[in-house]
């Protein structure tokens, strides 16, 4: 089922959770709502589910205005971060709950319910836990049961609120791969909320980036990562090195130093914020005066394929921290040691004009 939200605004007292948000969720896609905590992503999810009323704006489910549709009639499956399993019921009864609550006329006979529940438990690969109580399960198992319970009523949409937020890193990685696989089997329109950019980029068909109640960018994971539309998106989608400066011809001037920057449409003298990812910064020892930012190596981490170098700005760039990803060979070649003075030159610079 497709979902559209139009001009949704919602405030809690003085805090604006959603500020005129309009979005389109096409049928069958897995979409991530990504943003820092307090950006309004969970509120948006709850508005779509009908658990929260928007102050203004419309939610259209399959083109129909859902304003007067109660949560229980919206046919949305909702999965909470902390599972919200019924602790007085067995796993089986938890999954069967939605089926048993149907009006008598629509309710399946108990043996059909049992079959359906077992099929769902097989789908989430936890058939053998049917008689356990939620307290006896691990976090990852609980979340899969919560998902099976939501799927039991054959929802038209699946809404997941930080579904892996309470799990440890390893289980989280496992479960998100599993969720992606499940979605590829079921093709049910799904929206999940997360603050973990890696999770969003890895799992979703499309990512919606939100900040301060507004949508910053919508796109496929590749699009938003490669072409971030705003400084916020750039900063949120990975580690960044940040420079404040002014455009001067073919370069950006930062204090007394100069960063090379290929042809830009920005006017001469424009105040800009420039970003470079850690792997886009080059460490050089000698330089013609003024090219690159002066910095001092503070720590070198070399495990795995990538060697990470942390640096502190010196001279004009004092109190700034930089992070560079390079190779072990390069570190050896430059004879980098902690305390060594170097210069940083970006191989690629993304420049945003200051508003």
């Amino acid at each position, binding site marked *: 089922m497709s979902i559209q939200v139009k001009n949704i605004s919602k405030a809690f007292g003085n805090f604006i959770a959603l500020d005129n948000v309009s979005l389109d969720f096409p049928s069958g896609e897995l979409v991530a709502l990504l943003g820092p905590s307090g950006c309004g992503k969970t509120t948006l999810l709850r508005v779509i589910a009908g658990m929260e009323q928007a102050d203004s704006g419309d939610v259209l489910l399959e083109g129909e205005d859902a304003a007067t549709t109660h949560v229980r009639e919206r046919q949305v499956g909702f999965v*909470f971060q902390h599972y919200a399993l019924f602790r007085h019921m067995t796993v089986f009864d938890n999954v069967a709950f939605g089926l048993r*609550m149907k009006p008598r006329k629509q309710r399946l006979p108990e043996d059909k319910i049992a079959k359906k529940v077992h099929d769902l438990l097989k789908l989430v690969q936890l058939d053998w836990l049917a008689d356990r109580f939620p307290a006896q399960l691990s976090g990852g198992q609980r979340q899969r049961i919560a998902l099976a319970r939501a799927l039991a009523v054959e929802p038209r949409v699946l809404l997941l609120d930080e579904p892996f937020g309470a799990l440890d890193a390893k289980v989280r990685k496992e479960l998100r791969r599993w969720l992606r696989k499940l979605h590829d089997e079921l093709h049910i329109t799904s929206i999940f909320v997360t603050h973990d950019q890696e999770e969003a980029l890895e799992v979703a068909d499309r990512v919606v980036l939100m900040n301060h109640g507004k949508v910053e960018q919508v796109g496929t994971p590749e699009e938003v990562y490669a072409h971030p539309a705003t400084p916020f998106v750039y900063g949120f989608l990975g580690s960044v090195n940040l420079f404040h400066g002014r455009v001067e011809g073919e370069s950006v001037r930062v204090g007394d130093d100069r960063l090379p920057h290929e042809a830009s449409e920005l006017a001469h003298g424009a105040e800009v914020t420039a970003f470079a990812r850690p792997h886009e910064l080059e460490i050089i020892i000698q330089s013609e005066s003024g090219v690159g930012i002066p910095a001092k190596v503070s720590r070198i981490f070399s495990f795995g394929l990538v060697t990470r170098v942390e640096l502190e700005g010196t001279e004009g760039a004092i109190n700034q921290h930089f992070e560079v990803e390079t190779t072990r060979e390069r570190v050896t070649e430059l004879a980098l040691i902690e305390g060594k003075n170097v210069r940083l030159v970006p191989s690629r610079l993304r420049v945003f004009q200051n508003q």
Partner: protein
Amino acid sequence: MKKSSLHHVLPGFSLSMGYTLVYLSLIVLIPLSAVLIKTAHLTWEHFLSVVTAPRVMASYKLSFGASLLAGVINSIFGFILAWVLVRYRFPGRRIVDALIDLPFALPTAVAGIALTAIYSGHGWLGQYLEPLGFKIAFAPPGILIALIFIGLPFVVRTLQPILEDLEIELEEVSASLGARRWQTFFYVIFPIILPALLTGFALAFARAVGEYGSVIFIAGNIPMVSEITPLMIISKLEQYDYEGATAIALVMLVFSFILLLAINLLQAWAAKRTGRVR
């Protein structure tokens, strides 16, 4: 030190258990066993004739019947009160919250006199109710009202923390799965609060069985109609019939103990079913 005690994560079992037993003996068991010893002065026939006298039998029925009914009524309305106090924010909520405890603090005689003043034939409410055929003061319904009054705080106070811990998410998820509001209440909320509700009921009931002060003023104490068992005990004492008094007390004690034990077992069973104990 014995080997087994080395492996305990929580040390001090023998010390704390010993303390518990001594304390319980001093405060509860020894005084209660005095009841038993005093009663033992009676012959079996005499004992039976005392505890099964028609007036006494009528008083058991009234005492336990009214206490159970008061417990049930308190459970229902205490739940509603606790729910309102936990779930809603309204002006004066703190004051209502403090009012709940008043029956604890008030001397029971004061409560009895106040209730009598209101419900007697000339009282604020009694003057309207009595012409309609509702005789409350100096009749069993008056006893019931006094018992409800003194038992109310128990149910509210045992339920409040449980309701505060109840996650709203459970109700939201229930609604999203298509459950109506009453289904959410009966299948989700009620099973979770049931053990606490039973505890509150047991406390309110136990308090009501032992209540004397407030009931005595409003009951009218008409033989065979509105005499409660504690009153029977007191009247025996006033006649210096100590053995007779303890005999009735013993019956009351045994009966109360059986009922409370049953409620506790029920409560444990419910707690197990709600997954609180594995």
